[in-house]
């Protein structure tokens, strides 16, 4: 872990070397997110409500999912661009260092400019929360933190899976973006507005429902089941097979050297 953070620190240092490029990309990432946020607002101008959900409720979900997606993009950039690591032989170097290969691959890149997005997501979450009249207690704070951790874990799993496929295909697979980009889009809205099979997929296969829908029902007082709040813990069950696929991928690499 120490090595991880020191490497990240070094990468941050490297990005700050290019000051102008950095400032421009922070502003860029802020603006793009801003447009997206506005689009949610306009959607509600038209419809006032989606299902049983009000604007601030959806804005809260949107902010939370986008926040964790941005954090993932910031910290997991190396996995996102893993095909480059394979192509330019950088993975050989990772294997000759006495540290975990997945950890090393993760910290080959760090995208500090996503800080613009993260800030904005925090603002959106903040505004939503002040307009939502949630009866806060210690458990609900815990649930809120857990939701975010769970959401990050799902993205982590998706990014690992996406990277793992590079061991076989060399190219990053576009269809994996369905999971990361698509998952992000889907999870921005409460899943009860979708068709049933869709809901099942995003509850049991890629469990976005466990980190937004159910805990949020509890958080907003739409349901009283306290255990909805700890469902995000089960995202670990999604992460484990992803790491397994990664391990198989590394084994495959060692026997082909592709």
């Amino acid at each position: 872990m120490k090595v991880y953070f020191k490497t990240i620190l070094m990468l941050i240092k490297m990005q700050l070397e290019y000051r102008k490029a950095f400032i421009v990309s922070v502003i860029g990432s802020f603006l793009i997110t801003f447009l997206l946020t506005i689009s949610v607002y306009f959607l509600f101008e038209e419809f006032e409500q989606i299902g049983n959900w009000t604007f601030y409720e959806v804005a809260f979900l949107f902010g939370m999912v986008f926040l964790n997606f941005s954090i993932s993009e910031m910290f997991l950039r190396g996995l996102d661009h893993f095909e480059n690591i394979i192509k330019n032989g950088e993975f050989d170097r990772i294997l000759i260092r006495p540290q975990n290969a997945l950890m090393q691959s993760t910290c080959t890149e760090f995208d500090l400019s996503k800080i613009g997005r993260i800030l904005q997501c925090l603002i959106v979450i903040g505004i939503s929360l002040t307009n939502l009249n949630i009866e806060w207690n210690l458990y609900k704070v815990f649930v809120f933190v857990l939701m975010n951790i769970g959401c990050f874990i799902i993205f982590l799993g998706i990014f690992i899976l996406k990277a793992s496929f590079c061991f076989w295909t060399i190219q990053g697979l576009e269809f994996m973006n369905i999971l990361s980009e698509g998952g992000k889009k889907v999870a921005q809205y409460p899943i009860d507005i979708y068709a049933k099979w869709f809901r099942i997929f995003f509850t049991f296969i890629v469990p976005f429902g466990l980190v937004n829908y159910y805990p949020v029902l509890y958080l907003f007082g739409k349901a009283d089941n306290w255990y909805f709040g700890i469902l995000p813990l089960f995202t670990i069950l999604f992460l484990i097979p992803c790491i397994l696929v990664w391990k198989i991928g590394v084994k495959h690499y060692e026997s082909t050297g592709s």
Partner: protein
Amino acid sequence: MEESIIKLNNISKQFKISKREAGMKNAIKSFFKREYKTINALDNISFDIKPGEIVGYIGPNGAGKSTTIKIMCGILVPTSGECIIDGFIPWKDRKKYVKNIGVVFGQRSGLWWDVPPIDSFELLKDIYNIPQKEYEQKLKELTESLDLEEIKNIPTRQLSLGQRMRCEIAAALLHNPKILFLDEPTIGLDAVSKLSLRKCIKTINEKTNLTIILTTHDMQDIEALTNRIILIGKGKILYDGSLEKIKSKYKDKMKINVKFKYTDKKIKIKEAKILEQTEESASLVLKHKDENMADILNELTSQVDIVDINIEDMSTDDVIAKLYKELKI
């Protein structure tokens, strides 16, 4: 006899590659049904290397050099055979094993590009878990032998290739490995940088008894650093021994050009063949590679009044090229 530090025994490696003929039609066909061809990248490779040895691992492109290095670094698992390096099987227990080796890939940097080398060194200290005291001492030692004082605080991207390569070697040696793999370390370097790099490598080897395996296409690297070469071609080891021995094999190809004062006497030397002779010059070759050059020169001096003499030795490059041709690799 000293124990070997590197021991390869009948290492073979097969790759499956997809076979495909040219043309769009075949491209589409192979998309749906791919035919695979197995190639033997390495075919029963065996050799031993003793601690402190420098070995030149040479062969034409695609001969299997990189594959062997990758197996010895634990990156690739061979199809069969055994390999024991410093008591480890490289591809098992990778994390423990790699602490014993340093690797420099000439074409790829192991340093972080936008920060000075010293920052990379600091990070490597943590990656390899080097105690602070050992780190400081080793850094001081390497700074001296690789002459890094002036360059270790300049961002890596601003260093010249030669400077960078010295830093790369330092980065590979910080954790005090017993074995160093140098994969084409002098590629792209200018003459001065090459010379200084060779000197550095030689000094480090002598000082620390570091075992070095060097792959290169530059025969002068080999001549400057080692006398033992392992020649590989088409996945097989074709020669393992001294460079001198190969060179002497082609001694009968050496041409002696001699100029002398006017004479119409024909030169006659038992051990040499006269290729041509004019009234003031001649050129001759040894009849047999075991002949003694000194005898021939003596004979020459006794027969003519020598003004100038030169021996056209085959360069190592020529020798190796000839060898590749002869072995059909």
